[in-house]
């Protein structure tokens, strides 16, 4: 004998969702079959949950364009962290040259920083193909500037604002570009610019930044030791310190880094890859259970 409370007849082997009522006369609860023919008619040929269709008759709610919806992606080839800091003569960013394929360290020669124009550099974490797409967009902007032929090009802040809008709008369409970007460069009024944009459009600027794991590993070091008027060797030493901290803690990072910098009066440069000295013979690392008997 079926449960009287749920009077909808459920054919054996087919799941029909319980039909709730928002009708004030009936009140919240299940609408039994036969009570409201109009209601029943909606579900006559029903095969599954009724999606709330948009005005165009198909697609999902709030869809910008009708038709197939691209879902939130999973990233494939990813880069880990990018660190950035301002110093007296300019601004520098650093990252490793690894492109991971899941947990496999697959592409070891990836340049994760690019020069955008004579005053701006950009680094990325996250999906490589999405960053290639972002570079395509930035190339289009550069070509437009070139064709205008008035000697002006986009400032780092303009590029940063543009990328904020791009990332946020993609996130609104539920199709984000899976990147965290660090935009660095020099403004025309003689100041440095350093900003980050995330994949959901979150953005901020600061004197020192990191995207990805570096936020947890490197930024505390920066907060302690960074000053805006560091000289280039000091800044580089601090950067290498931070990179060492990152590579020794982050499992998806490798000990091969590049540093890109933009200095006042000079063109942006991306350095040759280099390694930092790492030390793996800490006592507690070699013998972690020495002071904790019973662990392995």
């Amino acid at each position, binding site marked *: 004998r079926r449960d009287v409370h749920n009077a909808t007849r459920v054919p054996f082997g087919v799941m029909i969702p319980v039909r709730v009522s928002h009708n004030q006369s009936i009140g919240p609860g299940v609408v039994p079959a036969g009570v409201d023919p109009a209601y029943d008619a909606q579900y006559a040929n029903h095969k599954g949950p009724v999606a709330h269709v948009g005005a165009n008759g198909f697609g999902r709610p709030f869809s910008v364009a009708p038709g197939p919806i691209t879902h939130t992606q999973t990233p494939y080839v990813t880069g880990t962290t990018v660190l950035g800091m301002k110093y007296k003569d300019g601004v520098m960013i650093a990252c490793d040259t690894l492109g991971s394929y899941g947990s496999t360290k697959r592409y070891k020669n990836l340049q994760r920083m690019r020069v955008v124009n004579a005053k701006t550099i950009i680094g990325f974490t996250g999906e490589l193909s999405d960053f290639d797409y972002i570079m*395509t967009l930035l190339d*289009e902007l550069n*070509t437009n500037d*070139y*064709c205008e*032929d008035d000697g002006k090009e986009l400032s780092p802040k303009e590029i940063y604002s543009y990328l904020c809008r791009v990332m946020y709008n993609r996130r609104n369409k539920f199709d984000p570009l899976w990147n965290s970007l660090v935009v660095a460069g020099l403004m025309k009024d003689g100041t440095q610019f350093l900003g980050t944009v995330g994949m959901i459009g979150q953005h901020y600027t600061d004197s020192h930044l990191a995207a990805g794991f570096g936020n947890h590993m490197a930024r505390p070091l920066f907060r302690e030791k960074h000053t805006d008027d560091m000289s280039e060797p000091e800044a580089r030493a601090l950067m290498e310190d931070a990179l060492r901290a990152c590579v020794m803690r982050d499992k998806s990072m490798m000990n091969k880094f590049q540093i890109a910098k933009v200095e006042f009066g000079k063109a942006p440069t991306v350095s040759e890859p280099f390694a930092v000295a790492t030390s793996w013979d800490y006592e507690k690392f070699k013998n972690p259970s020495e002071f904790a008997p019973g662990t392995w």
Partner: protein
Amino acid sequence: DRHAGMAGTGLAPDARQIVSRARSECAQYLSFYGDRIPAQILADRMAHYMHLFTLYWSVRPFGASSLMAVKDEHDGYALYLLEPSGECQRYHGAAIGKGRQAAKNEIEKLDLGNLSAAEAVRHVARIVYATHDEKDKEFECELSWICDASGGEFKRVPKHVVDEAVEAAKAALESDDEMDA
């Protein structure tokens, strides 16, 4: 795009519209095929575009001709002449605008096959000054080129080269005047 450039004559807004369309064509080709648009294809598309305006009574033909300089892998450097009728022809040397007959005659005297870009700039400046009609009106000579020296990109000729060429052109003009007198 960087590998193509244009100079127009006639109604300036019409010339600007042609340039704008060419830029769109380049951008669209790049975003679709991932490569810079070849010279022939760009010329073809521009010719079709200009011809379009001669087909329908609701629009008027462009009041501007233009010279298009393109570099691509197959043809190297190419010069195309676009006319409001939709004609598009590749030339070794061409002239458009007011003094074009005289200019064309001057160009035909040149041995274009053996001219370097720098020499060509000097000849072009000389021809422009020689064929310019109102001799008392000051005008500015703008030169741009696309050649190996510019890295295969359409750029303004560097200032010192322009100044040199214009000086030589003015000197040639004065010496002509002296000879006539």
